[in-house]
């Protein structure tokens, strides 16, 4: 059989704008940029905010006119809606980008290699950046968050299993309490542990007290996210397991949880990133420290948010830069966790 030669047919995307149309779009955009200063002078608006507002209005009008010319009046609402949607997206991204940029630019100078190898036991907060570091705070954060995770993961996942698999008598009550817990202000969690563990039971200010305080904040996140993930597992799988003669426990352990594995992992990572940056509960429970404390069960301990907070409080320029450095390290850690969570949850089998 002779093979037909199709090489003369080129794949096309007729639904996309061609280069000429793209150029016109670009021209409209540029025109809006150029006209902005003019209108800024003509109207009582002023400053960056006024300029952005005028630009948005001009660009929306320009795009709308363009689409009317191309496709007629029918598309007018689509075009205005599209412009507004892009605007809303930009407005949401702007503060995020601004925070990232500010922390990175202010903190970058304070982060040197020794930041990760030294602590602040013999260094003044206003000594040069080449002395001292945040090692004690990084280690402290890891210790506290690790213990909080060890406390929360079994509790959170079991709570989620109670809500999705057992559906017991207290299902609605438990779900309500978990939801209410996720609204508890973090300082209240700190106060609670302070009152119960430190004042009443006489536990010292220590990593374990901080970990308990963080657990209170982490538990609802882990439980709720795990519940959502477990709810996505089709009922067919549970029925298939049980119909094969398995007990409910074996079905959950061998079929349901493995199927939700990556989702539960995401729940845990989200929980960790939720609490890694908490300051308020730690203020009342770990007290802060300037030296490495590898024993979370005794004595005050440092953590990155607290490190940032206490250095900022000194009011010294160099110390404030160090604080920005601490914030940058914290932000990076949380970002890494978030990206890991996204990769794990988005992973296709």
């Amino acid at each position: 059989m002779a093979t037909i030669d199709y090489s003369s047919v080129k794949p096309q995307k007729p639904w996309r704008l061609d280069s000429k149309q793209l150029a016109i779009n670009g021209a409209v955009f540029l025109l809006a940029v150029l006209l902005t200063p003019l209108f800024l002078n003509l109207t009582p608006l002023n400053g960056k905010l006024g300029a952005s507002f005028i630009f948005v209005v001009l660009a929306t009008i320009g795009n709308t006119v363009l689409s009317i010319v191309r496709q007629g009046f029918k598309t007018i609402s689509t075009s205005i809606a599209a412009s507004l949607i892009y605007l809303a997206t930009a407005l949401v991204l702007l503060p995020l980008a601004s925070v990232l940029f500010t922390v990175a630019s202010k903190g970058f100078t304070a982060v040197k290699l020794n930041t990760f190898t030294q602590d602040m036991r013999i260094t003044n907060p206003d000594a040069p950046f080449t002395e001292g570091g945040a090692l004690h705070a990084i280690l402290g954060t890891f210790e506290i968050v690790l213990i909080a995770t060890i406390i929360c993961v079994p509790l959170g996942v079991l709570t989620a299993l109670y809500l999705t698999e057992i559906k017991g008598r207290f299902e609605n009550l438990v779900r309500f309490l978990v939801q209410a817990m996720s609204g508890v202000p973090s300082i209240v969690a700190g106060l609670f542990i302070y009152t119960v563990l430190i004042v009443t039971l006489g536990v010292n200010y220590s990593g374990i007290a901080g970990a308990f305080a963080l657990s209170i904040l982490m538990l609802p996140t882990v439980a709720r996210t795990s519940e959502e993930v477990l709810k996505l597992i089709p009922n067919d799988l549970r029925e298939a397991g049980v119909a094969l003669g398995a007990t409910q426990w074996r079905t959950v352990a061998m079929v349901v949880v493995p199927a939700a594995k990556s989702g539960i992992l995401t729940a845990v990572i989200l929980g960790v990133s939720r609490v890694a940056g908490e300051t308020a509960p730690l203020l009342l429970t770990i007290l802060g420290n300037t030296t490495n404390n590898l024993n979370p069960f005794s004595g005050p301990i440092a953590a990155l948010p607290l490190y940032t907070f206490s250095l900022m409080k000194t009011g010294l320029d160099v110390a404030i830069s160090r604080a920005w450095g601490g914030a940058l390290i914290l932000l990076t850690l949380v970002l890494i966790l978030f990206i890991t969570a996204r990769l794990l949850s988005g992973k296709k089998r």
Partner: protein
Amino acid sequence: MDTQPTKIAGRTQNQRGLPMSGSNPVKSLAAVASGARVANKFTPGSGLEANGVHAWFGKHHALADINLEFPANTVTALIGPSGCGKSTFLRTLNRMHEFIPGAAMAGEVLLDGRDIYEPGSDVTKIRLKIGMVFQKPNPFPSMTIGENVLSGLKLAQLKIENKDEILEECLTRAGLWKEVKDRLGAQGGSLSGGQQQRLCIARALAVSPEVLLMDEPCSALDPGSTLRIEETIRELADSIIVVIVTHNMQQAARVSDYTGFFLSDGGPGQLIEVATTNEIFSTPRDKRTEDYVTGRFG
């Protein structure tokens, strides 16, 4: 009728409200029919038998007074329009019915002469003996093809000896061995829909059930896969009891020895007629059966 809905959990013997045995014309008809075709195949105390089975969802009476016998080594097809309770009946046969919140039932289901709803009976053992294949293929997504086949044994904590033999035997009986023998380590979800359904059949066979219940196993499959599964069902009938719910009357005619026709006239679903498949499709006794199988309604 004095039959009362009773919650499945925590029932006692005297709450059952069983109708008098032998009082039902449909059942005696079944006995006549089975006797006519395969003489003496049904001996009381072996095989599967439903006596006066009712089912409820909350207050809704879904199924009324079903009496059916499933003799050894036969295929029984359950046909009828949607919503007539065929699937519900199937699910009462291996106690999957009780998974639905608000479900209740009455009557008895005898496997080898013992009621599977007897208080204190081990429900997991019952489901091991009475396997089920669902409408939608549902292989376990976290397991490979091989692990899926063996999953029933692992889930029920049975000892697995000669793993390779079980794999080959079950996959061969399900008609899938040739297609997957070189990729038993691949994910179960990587198979096509028809292959997945045959994988589910292999999985159900691995625990050596005495009865296999199939709830519209081919409704999501292409004709080729349907044919393979029908062949599989015929082969299975050499050794076990198969009960299949189907909307496809040609399929019922092709694979089954007996056919039961279910119908709901707005009230609970009832078993209108049961006989050999030949009789149901050629000389049905009931006018409604005739109308249904000839395509005049439903």
